[in-house]
């Protein structure tokens, strides 16, 4: 089944105000930067974004915060983004902070048809407020519910026309689970190849989870913390 769309504009058709989006990436690593730029251009508003981070002030999802297109963020870590912290503390932005492992598993569960699960993470903290507690193996666990989204937007290294995806290094992060949890999943890839070019043994995300795929026009791939050692 051919999943290829012409370009980013066509890929994002149907994303409307007040929708819930999952956006792959960890920090600025493995984010769908072409799609984010297009969302800024489209001006879609009152979005709920599920993403581990919110980028930095002038890149990644930070761009959508600058333009106030996001109404609510569901994330685990928002440091390194002054505008995010300002909007959150002032109450302009609704924020649901959840443990990173719970976020990953909630997306995975959403895509896997598991409506909820128990985890020890967050027991006894603010995160547990209002959530059912059960003891398993002598230890308290809290009930976390699955997450799904109207659209999931992920970024992969390589993809084929069938929507099969291969990620590179730590740019994989949340992308595979989010691809599973989107009602419509859009994949932007660095390199789009004909079906048959990717080794089926090495596919990370099978094409069944991807509805639209396109090759991104350019990838800046900004580095957040450049750390090096001397030769």
């Amino acid at each position, binding site marked *: 089944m051919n999943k290829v769309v012409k370009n980013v504009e066509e890929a994002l058709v149907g994303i409307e105000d007040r929708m819930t989006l999952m956006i792959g990436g*960890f*920090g*600025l*690593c*493995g984010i769908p930067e072409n799609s984010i730029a297009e969302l800024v251009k489209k001006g879609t508003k009152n979005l709920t974004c599920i993403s*581990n981070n919110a980028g930095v002030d002038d890149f990644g999802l930070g761009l959508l915060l600058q333009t106030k297109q996001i109404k609510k963020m569901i*994330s*685990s*870590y*928002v*440091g*390194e983004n002054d505008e995010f*912290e300002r909007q*959150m*503390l002032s109450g302009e932005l609704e*924020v649901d*902070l*959840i*443990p*990173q*492992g*719970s*976020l*990953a*598993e909630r*997306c*995975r569960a959403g895509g896997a048809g598991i409506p909820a699960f128990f*985890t*020890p*993470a*967050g*027991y*006894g*903290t*603010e*995160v547990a407020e209002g959530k059912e507690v059960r003891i398993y193996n002598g230890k308290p666990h809290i009930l976390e519910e699955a997450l799904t989204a109207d659209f999931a937007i992920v970024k992969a*290294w390589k993809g084929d026309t069938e929507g099969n995806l291969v*990620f*590179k*290094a*730590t*740019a*994989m*992060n*949340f*992308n*595979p*689970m989010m691809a599973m949890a989107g009602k419509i999943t859009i994949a932007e890839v660095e390199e789009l190849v004909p079906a048959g070019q990717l080794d089926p043994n090495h596919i*990370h995300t099978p094409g069944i989870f991807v509805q639209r795929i396109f090759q991104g026009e350019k990838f800046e*791939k*900004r*580095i*957040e*913390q*450049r*750390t*090096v*050692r*001397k*030769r």
Partner: protein
Amino acid sequence: MLDKTGIAKRIAQELQDGWYVNLGIGIPTLVANYIPEGIEVEFQSENGVLGMGPFPFEGEEDADLINAGKQTITVREGASFFDSATSFAMIRGQHVQLTVLGAMEVSQNGDIANWKIPGKMVKGMGGAMDLVASADNIIVAMMHSNKAGESKILKECTLPLTGVGCVKKVVTELAVLEIKDGKFHLIERAPGVSVEEIIAKTEGDLVVPEFVPEMQL
């Protein structure tokens, strides 16, 4: 008194051969530089890598290869990459033997706070809540008191908690403390630091044995 490097060196002495270890941001990251000779450990970073190596040489940074602190890294031979759900399966499933992380406050029953100061600072918990809720072996690397000189080793945490009853050991610039039976136990003191100073800077209940050895670094 120890500097940050000293705290990292002392924690590195806790490493055991064959362990998989998760190091948090800040002082914990430095622990990787002081692995005792003759033992092999592998570092896990929760953003999806096992087998982290040193920072890359200048010009060899790869935007797709970072650690949980978003720093560019390299990997050692035998490394592997995986998604975030698999990464936290390793953590929750207790396949990682040691977690080292920083804290703003620790209490005598093992509670830890490190993600939020209400009304002032919110960075988020990241993977810390998953890590502390699941790890059997947690060492906290932190300063004994804050900039105002107030103890961060407390009877009860005042800040929003990251986890309850989970911390077993704390290494500060002054001391190594163990937490058991709802109290801090003084295990070692830093070079040149007196037991009196540690007592004075510890707000929580502290059990002090007759003889407190000095750390060997």
